[in-house]
């Protein structure tokens, strides 16, 4: 067993909170540049230029790319040979978020109760997904998830008879209905299979995969391309002002499912598609 002090987890989470909010990944930056090249609309081009300029300012000045610094969503892969010492694992993560959001001048966007809506003041609690894996390492991915794009997401329990067409139509319709709201150009995370709760998790997990890395299964890799083409024919364009660049990428994650079911979920992310990771 390898002993790891949970303080290291808190430190990593604090660093990742800042890193993810200041520095957009190269894959997204490249996709924005490619989108700019392909954009036909003059207004769309202007928007893409401003988004790239925004990314540059955030990086150079170490400020938040977007004021909505999100819910802190964490994916933790915990090696089964790790023994955590020095305190409570979940509390360490929240301590990291608290510190990172405070030190990083990041916005506190969490309310304690969905109806009473009083801000918790420190952006906690985080939403944490932990998976136990072989090995003695801990991999932490932190993804600040903005509300605007999250709100346009959807889940549908499709039936097996609806087949691949049912899936494609659901994904394209969801993006079409979202229109200008989720700050296009967007990134589309698709979960397919599993159960009601698993499919939503897969859709969010899909957003963690770099945009230049297609699904390892060639069938789903092609489907990702097909969906992206369909979405970019919608005409929504950068910021919804009309144009070619509605989405920068579509990532699909799948899982086996029940003989009666074919769950699908679409988690929409904005162009500020942020995540950062660290291995302890």
């Amino acid at each position, binding site marked *: 067993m390898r002993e790891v002090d949970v303080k290291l987890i808190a430190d990593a989470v604090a660093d990742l909170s800042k890193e993810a909010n200041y520095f957009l990944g190269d894959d997204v930056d490249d996709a924005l540049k490619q989108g700019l090249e392909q954009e*036909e*609309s003059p*207004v769309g081009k202007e*928007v893409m230029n*401003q*988004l790239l*300029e*925004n990314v540059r*300012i*955030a990086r150079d*000045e170490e*400020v*938040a*790319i*977007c*004021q*909505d*610094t999100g819910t802190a969503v964490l994916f933790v892969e915990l090696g089964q040979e790790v023994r955590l010492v020095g305190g409570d694992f979940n509390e360490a993560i929240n301590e990291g978020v608290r510190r990172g959001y405070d030190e990083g*001048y*990041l*916005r*506190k*966007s969490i309310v304690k109760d969905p109806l009473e*809506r009083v*801000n918790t*003041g420190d952006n906690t609690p985080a939403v944490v997904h932990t998976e136990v894996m072989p090995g003695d390492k801990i991999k932490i991915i932190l993804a600040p998830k*903005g*509300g*605007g794009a999250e*709100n346009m997401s959807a889940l549908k329990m499709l039936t097996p008879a609806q087949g691949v067409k049912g899936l494609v139509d659901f994904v394209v319709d969801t993006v079409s209905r979202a*229109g*200008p*709201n*989720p*700050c296009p150009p967007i990134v589309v995370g698709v979960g397919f299979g599993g159960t009601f709760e698993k499919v939503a998790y897969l859709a969010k997990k899909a957003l963690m995969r770099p945009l230049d890395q297609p699904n390892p299964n060639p069938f789903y890799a092609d489907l990702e391309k097909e969906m992206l083409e369909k979405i970019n*024919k*919608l*005409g*929504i*364009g950068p*910021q*919804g*002002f*009309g*144009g*070619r660049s509605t989405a920068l990428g579509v990532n699909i994650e799948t899982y086996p499912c029940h003989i009666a079911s074919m769950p699908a979920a679409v988690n929409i992310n*904005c*162009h*500020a598609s942020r995540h950062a990771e660290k291995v302890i």
Partner: protein
Amino acid sequence: MEPKRIAPPLTDEDVMNLKAGDNVLISGVIYTARDAAHKRLVELLEKGEEWPVDLKGQLIYYVGPAPAKPGEVIGSAGPTTSGRMDSYTPAVLEYGVKGVIGKGARNEATRKAFQDYKAVYLAAIGGAGALLAKVIKEAEIVAYEELGPEAIRRLVVEDFPATVVNVAHGNDLYEEGRKQYALD
């Protein structure tokens, strides 16, 4: 096309000079309010009570800024999704606010309210918070401090860029732009 310059408070005439698709540069004072502040303001209207700040003729910016780093005026400050304010906006425009700045589509009733009350809906670039913070020269909380990022702030802006989406004439930039670029 050269952007049009506007400086609040706005008159009916200022608004009627704008059309969907126009780029504008705003200079002067604008006020921030988003979900929680709107809820309170509209409750005051329902009770027939005064607002904590007089916003007649003014522009409301839907934003919950990130905190300012030391030495800075404000943190990242881009628009939030406007649709969540749809249920409040007709009452806010009836009160006399002349325009709002946000991002994303408005519902039918709200679009009609922009026509009825001669007001303008402007879109700022969603997710360009670091860039937009540069044109904000002063920021001060003027009401509801306890709401944190949702407090009402008075901002002084210089050449704040935005695009007209809906205005009194009834057109909608989102619909028109999308139609122009949709394939098959």
